[in-house]
């Protein structure tokens, strides 16, 4: 640590660029000495050295006083006490200084001839040398012990900080909380004064930058956000000589922000240690941010599911509320038909037919609306099963009997049509719309031909009419929602039929296309469905056994 050096600089050293020339020379001298000392002994501090000297002086005075009353040999033994105190309190350098001063003091004040640095008795020299050796060795031991104790308590503090930090992270529910936690943790545990976390929301503009962020650091952070350099970087700020660490909070996720830490003036070994601690803390924070992200996704999904449920409930209610009265109307009309007085009156009968048919149309329209909402809001998923297309065609014609009653529907299906794996109801609906469309846009009494043919990997079901045909432009638009042919404004409809047909065919893995030679040349709409190969022979055998 360089606290002492910094302490000196803070008090005394003016900036070389701003200092006046007269003082500059003197300052230069001191600085040279201290720079040399600082590079040799990075831990040297001035105050402990002075105090050490003072301690030896006090010990000497006390010994001198004692000596006048009670002469003692081996005063050097007593000097070991302040030397040890210095070593334990301030480290090796003050202890060595204290040893030197103690040797000098012992020689000067206690070994004859007194008050000179000379020594008469050679044993005294040995005594002094031995003292020096013992002092140095015990000081070294004391310093090691002191360092070990200091390291242990520092680690304890670190662990405590880290524990508090992870507890705080665990309670975080917003990225902003995590950013604040990182900031607080690094400032308190690393004692690094300036930490910047650039918010994820507005990467280009750091929202909460502390005052005094150097331009170089700001530029490096912007660089990171621009994706030019994602590696953590150590940048020296040229003017203040501070070193900054600039890195993303999470290595892969720029959205979590960028952090800039003022590391002060560091040696490279100190830098490595501090970077390791920052890495550890940020790994925890990034994990928590990732967890929050997952939580956010879960929350989103939950909300979507709720919306879905609500929509389904609403749809169910609407369909129920519309259909219940409709069921009564249709049911009642079929009862009335049986009444003798109505059966005998053709006018009343016709009226009842209108009632019944219109209610039927209304029911179809409700179904179309529900289908349209389903297609718009969710992907239609077919519940596929093996289906005989002949059944589908028959059911569709049966259900639309009234609508195609005045056209000659000619069904030509080969008896050995392969089975298809589709949801029968969806294909019935799709085919029904195509059929209904053919009836709608073709003259009364005209033929509608329904054909099916097996191809290599699909079955093509086609509906051909001799109606109004399609223009080139209409062919492009007939599959769009709510498209109505402009040439025939008198034909009723919502424009949903073919759109629904297409959605249902596509949901079953099929395709649908329209072909027309042009206006008044009729139209052919083909539904192609994939044929999933199955063991025909096995099925045949299963039936014959």
């Amino acid at each position, binding site marked *: 640590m360089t606290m002492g050096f910094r302490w000196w600089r803070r008090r005394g050293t003016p900036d070389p660029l701003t200092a006046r020339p007269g003082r500059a020379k003197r300052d230069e001298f001191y600085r040279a000495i201290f720079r040399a000392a600082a590079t040799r002994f990075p831990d040297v501090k001035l105050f402990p050295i002075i105090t050490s000297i003072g301690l030896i002086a006090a010990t000497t005075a006390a010994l001198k006083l004692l000596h006048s009353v009670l002469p003692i040999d081996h005063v050097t033994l007593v000097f070991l006490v302040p030397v040890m105190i210095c070593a334990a309190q301030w480290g090796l350098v003050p202890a060595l200084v204290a040893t030197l001063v103690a040797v000098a003091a012992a020689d000067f004040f206690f070994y004859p001839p007194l008050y000179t640095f000379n020594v008469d008795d050679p044993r005294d020299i040995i005594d002094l040398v031995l003292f020096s050796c013992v002092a140095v060795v015990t000081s070294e031991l004391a310093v090691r012990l002191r360092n070990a104790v200091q390291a242990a308590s520092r680690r304890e503090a670190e662990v405590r900080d880290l524990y508090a930090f992870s507890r705080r992270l665990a309670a975080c529910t917003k990225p902003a909380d995590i950013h604040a936690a990182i900031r607080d943790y690094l400032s308190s545990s690393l004692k690094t004064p300036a930490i910047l976390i650039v918010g994820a929301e507005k990467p280009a503009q750091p929202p909460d930058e502390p005052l005094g962020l150097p331009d170089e650091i700001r530029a490096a952070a912007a660089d990171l956000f621009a994706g030019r350099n994602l590696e953590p970087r150590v940048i020296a700020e040229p003017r203040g000589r501070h070193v900054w660490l600039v890195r993303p909070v999470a290595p892969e996720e720029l959205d979590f922000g960028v952090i800039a830490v003022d590391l002060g003036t560091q040696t490279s070994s100190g830098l490595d240690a501090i970077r390791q601690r920052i890495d550890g803390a940020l790994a925890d924070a990034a994990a928590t941010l990732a967890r929050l992200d997952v939580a956010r996704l879960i929350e989103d999904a939950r909300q979507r599911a709720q919306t879905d449920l609500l929509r389904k409930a609403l749809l169910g209610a609407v*369909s*129920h509320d519309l*259909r*219940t*009265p*409709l*069921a*009564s*109307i*249709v*049911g*009642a*009309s*079929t*009862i009335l*038909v*049986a*009444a003798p007085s109505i*059966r005998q009156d053709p006018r009343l009968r016709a009226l*009842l*037919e209108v009632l*019944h048919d219109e*209610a*039927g149309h209304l*029911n179809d329209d409700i*179904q179309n609306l*529900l289908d349209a909402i389903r297609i718009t809001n969710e992907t239609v998923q077919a519940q596929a*099963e*093996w*289906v*005989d297309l*002949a*059944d*589908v065609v*028959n*059911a569709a*014609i049966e259900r639309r*009997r*009234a609508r*195609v*009653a005045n056209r*000659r*529907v*000619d*069904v030509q*299906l080969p*008896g050995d049509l392969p*089975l298809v794996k589709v*949801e*029968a*109801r969806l294909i*019935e609906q799709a085919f029904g719309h195509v059929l209904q469309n053919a009836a709608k846009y073709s003259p009364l009494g005209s033929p509608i031909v329904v054909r099916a043919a097996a191809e290599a990997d699909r079955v093509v079901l086609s509906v051909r009419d001799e109606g109004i045909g399609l223009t080139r432009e209409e062919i492009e638009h007939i599959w769009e929602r709510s498209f109505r042919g402009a040439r025939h404004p008198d034909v009723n409809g919502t424009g949903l039929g073919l759109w629904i047909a297409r959605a249902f065919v596509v949901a079953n893995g099929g395709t649908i296309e329209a072909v027309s030679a042009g206006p008044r040349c009729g139209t052919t709409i083909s539904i192609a469905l994939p044929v999933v190969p*199955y063991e025909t022979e096995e*099925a*045949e055998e*299963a*039936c*014959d*056994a």
Partner: protein
Amino acid sequence: MPRSSHVVLVIDDEQQIRRFLRAGFEIHSFSVLEAESAGEGLKAAMLRSPDLILLDLGLPDMDGGELLERLRAWSDVPLIVLSVRADEHEKVRLLELGADDYVVKPFGMAELLARAHAAMRRHVRSSVGTPIVRAGPLSIDFVNRHVSLDGKRISLTRKEYRLLQLLGQHAGNVVTHQQLLKEIWGAGHVHFTQYLRILVRKLRHKIEADPANPTIVATELGVGYRLAQPEPAAPPIHAPERARV
């Protein structure tokens, strides 16, 4: 079939549906009981022992399946489900739980009556034991395992006969794919719908006048098959012009 004494129990929470059903059944000489909820319906079924129950899906107080299970625990009374089109799975589930048939809203009175009579005949058959079931030109002799078409005996494979027998036991009512597959091929094959499709094709070729346009074995899309039984219960709305094909 004597119709004077039949009692029908309508379990439906919608008043307007109950009202038209009451009118429709009373015209056809049924006496009608009404229940607004499943609980009330179960109670009425127990106390009044109706000849037929109409059960609406989506009662507020109990799931239709639960009601059926409770009812079927002690009663074999004919039961028709009134459903909406979207309830495909629910329909099949209830049929498997023992409902005789279903109609989809909106339905005509004639259709409902046909289903109801078919279900009541099934009930009578199962208690009395009727050896022969007829469907148009077809007659199935359960005792001798004979099938004849217009009086002429036709030969069927074992599985074809089994299929016809199952449909004949519920003549006029739907039998689900799963029920048929389970009875014919066993419980391990309930998802092999393709077997059933092929078997039905083969059967239709033997008994239908026009196999492409079947009138005896009718398909209920997504649900099952039904042995059609012409029922002269009520005139259809579009009586004269049935000029299809």
